């Protein structure tokens, strides 16, 4: 069922014409079991975990249960940015691992994930911003991660379509550039991992909602779903923005809550932006923007500011984020907004993720990705797989243990305190 994609295959398909090349990327499966591992959540993290469990740890019977359809959740709703420009060494190490994996993933999955190393540029709008960016850049370089501090003139040279001289409420004074950062086609990541996992025997089961955990004789026995009981020895939760709602259903108290942020895509235009810009717009949050290969400007803002699970957002927030975009790039003011949506973000009390085994049960949690889960997919999948397979967390993700909140080892990138809305 899974053919190898290649240039030769493209030519053969073209010769055969049309429907010969149309086949499902992965087979439709119904729940069976019993499974060695049940992964709840068929997003980027869940599918990647299944892939690495099958490929590296050779587990045979793995199921991924997806409530809706692969690609419908946050993996298909993010703004596709990948980077490792973090301040804290524990986060730097982890996201660097992920960034390096992005580099070889297309070949490994035999699927074009369109990793574009177009750079990620954090713009400074004040001298204080520059101080903070310089500090973060130095922290990155101390860890061997690429970082460049640009002055105003250098920003203008790097981004020709950005007029640094245009009068702005918050003028651009410089920026911090990570050249190895960039974008990856988000849908391709979901499909690529699903296809590769299915080819290794993973059951990718769509339209299956987990309603609760099943226990027999005090041990995890599987899950209760809207398609009945599914037996499994180990249950791994990877539902990202739905972590708080699933936790409520399972009776778990976790240091996180769900917040929305707004994102959108404009109509396609000719190539005008070949990097990722991040612009602080104090009072209305921030906007980050890049241009997709189809020509639309993909942009997003910061959190709406209050918990919500509605997956839509206040119109005033869409307006705020759009206004930040047109303040940064005035030439976008007349563009049509083709699509806009809100993403549900599992915001933790320190802004950093949680990957851990929950207590002594065969129950594992991967969540708390806040608004930054997409870039983490390869590293998270690989490390979570090792945790599930071995029962012990690899060094890379030990800082993300759940107990850190109660022992004072929080990973507070922003130093904002225990306020999810401020991370």
């Amino acid at each position, binding site marked *: 069922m899974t053919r190898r994609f290649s240039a030769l295959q493209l030519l053969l398909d073209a010769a055969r014409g049309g429907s010969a090349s149309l086949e499902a990327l992965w087979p439709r499966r119904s729940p069976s079991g019993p499974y060695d591992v049940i992964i709840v959540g068929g997003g980027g993290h869940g599918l990647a975990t299944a892939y690495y469990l099958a490929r590296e740890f050779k587990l045979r019977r793995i199921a991924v249960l997806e409530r809706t359809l692969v690609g419908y959740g946050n993996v298909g709703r993010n703004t596709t940015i990948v980077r490792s420009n973090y301040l804290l060494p524990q986060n730097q190490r982890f996201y660097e691992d992920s960034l390096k994996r992005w580099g070889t993933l297309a070949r490994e999955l035999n699927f074009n994930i369109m990793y574009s190393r177009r750079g990620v540029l954090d713009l400074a709008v004040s001298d204080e911003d520059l101080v903070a960016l310089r500090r973060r850049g130095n922290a990155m370089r101390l860890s061997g991660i690429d970082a460049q501090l640009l002055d105003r003139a250098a920003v203008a040279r790097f981004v020709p379509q950005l007029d640094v001289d245009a009068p702005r409420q918050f003028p651009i004074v410089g920026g911090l550039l990570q050249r190895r950062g960039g974008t990856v086609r988000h849908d391709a990541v979901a499909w690529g991992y699903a296809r590769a996992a299915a080819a290794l025997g993973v059951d990718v089961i769509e339209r299956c909602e987990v309603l609760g955990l099943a226990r027999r004789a005090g041990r995890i026995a599987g899950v209760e779903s809207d398609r009945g009981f599914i037996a499994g020895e180990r249950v791994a939760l990877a539902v990202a923005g739905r972590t708080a709602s699933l936790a409520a259903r399972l009776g778990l108290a976790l240091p996180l809550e769900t917040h929305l942020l707004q994102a959108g895509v404009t109509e396609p235009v000719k190539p005008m932006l070949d990097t990722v810009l991040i612009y602080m717009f104090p009072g209305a949050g921030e906007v980050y923007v890049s241009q997709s290969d189809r020509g639309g400007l993909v942009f997003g803002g910061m959190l709406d500011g209050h918990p919500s699970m*509605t997956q839509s957002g*206040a119109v005033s927030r869409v307006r705020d984020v759009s206004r930040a975009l047109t303040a940064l790039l005035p030439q976008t003011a007349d563009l049509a907004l083709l699509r806009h949506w809100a993403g549900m973000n599992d915001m933790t009390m320190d802004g950093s993720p949680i990957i851990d085994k929950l207590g002594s049960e065969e129950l594992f949690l991967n969540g708390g990705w806040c608004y930054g889960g997409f870039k983490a997919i390869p590293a998270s999948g690989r490390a979570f797989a090792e945790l599930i397979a071995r029962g012990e967390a690899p060094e890379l993700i030990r800082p993300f243990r759940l107990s850190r909140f109660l022992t004072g080892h929080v990973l507070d990138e922003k130093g904002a305190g225990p306020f999810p809305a401020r991370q």
Partner: protein
Amino acid sequence: MLIRCPFCGEREAAEFRFRITRPEVAGTAAERLYLRRADPQRSIEHWQHAEGCRMWLEVTRDLTSGAVLAVSAELTRAAG
């Protein structure tokens, strides 16, 4: 959307700022500080009428629909 402030009457939602979700967790100080167990359909939160009277209010909301269920001037302790 309008929210009824007990002191000011019905005002635009944008005048109010979310501050924290009231923890529904008993236990140690760290557990009460960090852990959350909000019922998605009945989340009890502390908001401030930041652009009005600036009083702190207890707002009960349904997170799945966005509806405001109750607004009170009394900040209650969580049920143990």
